[in-house]
């Protein structure tokens, strides 16, 4: 399937029960797809729902209605209705995600955080660590930090750990939430090159990039999320 990700008629709202049941509509009628080897960028103003879309595609947010069709191994799965076990399997093998912020696990070193998704797919831990070190090195993370838990790292250092973790596997779909936001120019270039490599390898990428220069360079297509706004009347 040349189109490993199809989003169809998806809507999302939040009901804030602690605020008197206020209904907060975010997006509706979201329709798009991402092809293998393509990098699609979600654009639009802050609060338009870009991150929410990525989170729905990762199974982290529920959806109100619609379908999220993902090619998972030799099947097509609707993530919008998949059970937790299936979502976990899809995350292990098919969809990778670089979140905006790293969630640190106490007492686990940077290199092990990066190696973990590869180890979870059956790569021997030593080989996974070696690959993790290659990536951390490419991203210029000082070697002294590799064996430390990232809790005390700077924003940019944590983000590079997060990027390495997301890029280490060969997942056919990769979601990127502002991976370059807290990086300097040199490391931004590294990430742009890594994205280019993923495209060459036939990965379907869907990302959010506020930096216009980065966006211009990686995007094959930009989708303006405000077109899906559920707050048009306001």
């Amino acid at each position, binding site marked *: 399937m040349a189109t490993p990700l199809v989003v169809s008629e998806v809507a999302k709202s*939040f*009901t*804030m*029960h*602690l605020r008197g049941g206020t209904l907060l509509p975010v997006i509706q009628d979201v329709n798009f797809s991402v092809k293998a080897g393509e990098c699609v960028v979600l654009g639009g103003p802050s609060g338009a729902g870009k991150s929410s879309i990525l*989170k729905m595609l990762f*199974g*982290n*947010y*529920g959806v109100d209605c619609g379908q999220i069709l993902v090619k998972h191994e030799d099947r097509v799965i609707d993530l919008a209705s998949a059970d*937790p*076990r*299936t*979502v*976990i*399997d899809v995350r292990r093998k098919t969809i990778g995600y670089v979140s905006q912020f790293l969630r640190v*696990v*106490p*007492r*686990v070193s940077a290199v092990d955080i990066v190696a973990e998704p590869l180890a979870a797919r059956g790569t021997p831990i030593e080989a996974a660590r070696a690959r993790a070190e290659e990536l951390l090195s490419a991203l210029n993370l000082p070697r002294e930090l590799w064996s430390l838990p990232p809790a005390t790292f700077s924003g940019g250092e944590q983000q590079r750990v997060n990027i390495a973790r997301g890029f280490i596997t060969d997942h056919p779909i990769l979601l990127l939430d502002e991976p370059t936001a807290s990086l300097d120019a040199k490391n931004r270039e590294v990430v742009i090159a890594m994205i280019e490599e993923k495209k060459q390898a036939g990965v379907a990428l869907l990302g959010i990039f506020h930096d216009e220069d980065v966006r211009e360079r990686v995007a094959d297509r930009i989708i303006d999320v405000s077109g899906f706004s559920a707050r048009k009347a306001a």
Partner: protein
Amino acid sequence: MSEQPLLKVHELSKFYGARIGCRDVSFDLWPGEVLAIVGESGSGKTTLLNCLSTRLTADVGSVEYLMRDGQYRNLATMPEAERRFLMRTDWGFVHQNPADGLRMTVSAGANVGERLMAVGERHYGRIRETAGDWLGRVEIGLDRMDDQPRAFSGGMRQRLQIARNLVTSPRLVFMDEPTGGLDVSVQARLLDLIRGLVQDLGLAVIVVTHDLAVARLLSHRMMVMKNGLVIEQGLTDRVLDDPREPYTQLLVSSILQV
């Protein structure tokens, strides 16, 4: 993904007179899956855990367990002796208070070795060696092997209880507030240890906790209980990051950050 659920729970209910302990609970637990049961005190978490582990008898509903021979057995109708054997070998139960799960007046080594004897091991040297191995895995020095757990700190006792439970290579472990009542730093170390062991051994775990951070760190899937009912369930990070029910939103908003 061709495997079968380890545990099949169907409309389980338990009443204390007119009061509801837990009601209409149904779910499947898969091999290697970690399920967290959360909710405030009195919501029925421990009642449910005890019904699942047959420490309590449910009034309605059934729990079926996939035996090692590949057959499902209804736990309620299983002969008492067989069920006791299952609990001593194929299952573990980690209590909040280690004193409930350990024998406080026999040595640490014997606490672990005892469970091995339950699976038929008789060779003293091998029992001692395996017990020593397990003490090492839970970060208890071999020099403490002949001490009684009475002489141990709370964190050490809890680690010993875990070793005692895991030494028989169980497939399913129940945990009731395994980090409750411990200092924060001790908790972090214990959680890290549990997380590693569960991953390495591919254990299925049902863990009761009121601590959402524990649920986030350990579990794949989560059930939120209130007044004996499961009011929301799903993938752990989905329930925590996009809670639907008023009560779940209240729980999540009551903590600083998970």
